[in-house]
C-alpha cells in the first residue's frame, strides 16, 4: 500500500482556476457624491462682487465635493483591505 499513498497525492485533479478571476465589483457608492457644480448664472448688469462671491461659493462646494469623494474612496479602500473570510479575522 506504499505505492497507493504516492498515487493518492498524484491522482488529485488539477487545481481549479475559476477562483483566479481577477475582476472585482467595486462599490459605486462614492460616485453618487460626484455631482458637478454648475457655473453660477451671470447676467449683464449683475453686481460683480456678488458674482465673485457666487463663484467662490461654487468653488467651495466643488472642493467640499472633492474632499468628500476622497474620504469616501479612502473608506472604500480601507473596507476592502479589512475584509476577511469568516473565521479568519485579523488577530
Amino acid at each position, binding site marked *: 500500500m506504499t505505492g*497507493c499513498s504516492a498515487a493518492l497525492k498524484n491522482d488529485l485533479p488539477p487545481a481549479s482556476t475559476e477562483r483566479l478571476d481577477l475582476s472585482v465589483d467595486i462599490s459605486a457608492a*462614492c460616485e453618487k457624491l460626484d455631482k458637478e457644480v454648475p457655473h453660477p448664472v*451671470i447676467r449683464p448688469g449683475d453686481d460683480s462682487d456678488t458674482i465673485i462671491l457666487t463663484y467662490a*461659493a461654487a468653488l467651495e462646494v466643488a472642493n467640499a465635493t472633492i474632499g468628500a469623494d476622497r474620504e469616501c474612496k479612502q473608506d472604500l479602500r480601507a473596507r476592502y483591505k479589512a475584509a476577511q473570510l469568516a473565521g479568519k479575522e485579523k488577530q
Partner: protein
Amino acid sequence: MLGLAWTIFGGRQFLLGAIKFFSTPLGQIVAVAGALVLTAVTTDVHARIRDRAVCNGRIEANNVAWQERELQAKAAYDQARAKRDQDIDAALEKRVTEKAGSIQQLAERLALQVKVHEATAPTCRVSPGLIDRRDRLLGRAKK
C-alpha cells in the same frame, strides 16, 4: 512444459517416473514444498489484487472528497465576496447620503450668504462682454 517432457521422455514413461518419484520420501517432500510455494504465491497474488482494489477505491473516494471540498470552498468564497460587497456598499451608501446632505447644506448656506451680500451696496456691474469672455475661456463660446 508437459508436452516437451512427454515428447522427450515419452508420456507413459514420464508418468511412471513421476509416480515413482513422488512415491519416494524425497518426492513427497518436493510435492509438499511445491504445494506450499504454490499456495503462498496464490495468496500473495490475491492479496495484491485486493490491495489494488482497495487502493483504487481510496483514490476515487479521495478525488470525490477533494472535488466536494473544492466546490464547498468556492461556494463559501463566492458567498463571502458577495457579502463583503453588499456590506461595503451599504456602509458607503450611508456615509455618502450623510456627506451629500452636508454638502447640500453648505451650498444652501453659502447661497444665502451671497444673497445677504447682494442686498448691501452694489459695487461695479458686469460688462456685457464678460459673459462671452468667460464662455470663450471655458471653450463654450456660442457660434
